């Protein structure tokens, strides 16, 4: 039993509920017609022949749309991750300078 | 009396050390610079170390017992300089010759062509 700010979370209860629901679903599924599956039709792919051999989508092609729509963002990111060691340290210096300003500003501007 | 001796020794040491530096600046090529850099610094350091040795012995003679080790250790530093400095000079000279630095204004070069 994990108390959060707004309530609580109990994994065991959740699992019990999950199992109960699963059992109920299974029972409901068992109530249906058993012979339905046998004469179910092939899905209709708008006239296109289904490929017989199994295919595998390449990893680089997944979420292609996502990356393509965020092209501007990704080009900036790729420029940031340029793999040059000098720039890695430069970022450290930059962040330190920003932190210096954060820490020292209350002194300058009361 | 003792201080005068030390002054003289230190003076000679300073003179030769400065001479070494000036020689290092004035000479035209590596080999002649090595002459200045090796001989004069060694000689100057000998005098400076001798000043320290004299000082240590004097203080020891005056009753400060542990000052004898100032003299002994300075003596060892002196020996070490004396042994290693000319060897280092030789190593550099040979390396310089083999890496193709020829002596400038050379009258004769009997090593020429033998650096294989």
């Amino acid at each position: 039993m994990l108390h959060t700010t707004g309530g609580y979370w109990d994994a065991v209860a959740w699992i019990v509920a999950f199992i109960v629901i699963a059992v109920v679903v299974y029972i409901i599924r068992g109530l249906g017609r058993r012979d339905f599956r046998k004469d179910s039709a092939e899905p209709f792919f708008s006239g296109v022949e289904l490929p017989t051999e199994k295919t595998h989508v390449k990893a680089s092609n997944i979420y292609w749309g996502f990356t393509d729509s965020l092209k501007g963002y990704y080009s900036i990111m790729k420029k940031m991750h340029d793999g040059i060691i000098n720039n890695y340290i430069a970022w450290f210096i930059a962040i330190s300078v920003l932190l210096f300003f954060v820490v020292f500003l209350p002194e300058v501007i009361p | 009396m003792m201080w005068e001796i030390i002054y003289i020794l230190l003076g000679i040491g300073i003179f030769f050390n400065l001479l070494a530096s000036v020689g290092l600046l004035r000479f035209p090529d590596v080999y002649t610079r090595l002459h200045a850099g090796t001989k004069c610094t060694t000689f100057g350091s000998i005098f400076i170390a001798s000043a320290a040795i004299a000082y240590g012995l004097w203080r020891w003679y005056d009753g400060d017992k542990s000052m004898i080790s100032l003299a002994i250790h300075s003596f060892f530093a002196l020996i070490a300089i004396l042994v290693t400095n000319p060897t280092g000079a030789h190593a550099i000279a040979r390396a310089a010759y083999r890496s193709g630095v020829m002596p400038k204004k050379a009258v004769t070069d009997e090593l020429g062509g033998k650096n294989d």
Partner: protein
Amino acid sequence: MIWNIPFITVIVLIAVGLYAVLFKRNLIKIAVGITIIESGVNLFLITLGYRKGGVAPIYTNLPPNVEIPKGMVLPVPQALTLTSIVIGVAVLALILSFTMKIYEHYKSLDSHIVRRLKE
């Protein structure tokens, strides 16, 4: 009377080393820069411990008329610096051996070329 010149020396040394790390593209130069920063920090620790008129904190053959403890420099920074020097050597050896291996694979020491890992 010597203002804070040793501390300023330290900062300048760190600046020079950091300059090498930031702007030099040769990997061995970066190692040189790290060594210089290391030296600067070591010098910083030692200068922190210096006390005017102090002698080294060693009782063997102590010169006469040394006031204890105010007449000795602080020992803890020296101990810290010793540790720091050893760590510096260890790091330097490791960095340079990596550099040798990198040259074997990339045939270059330019940090703009040694970047197969990016994006």
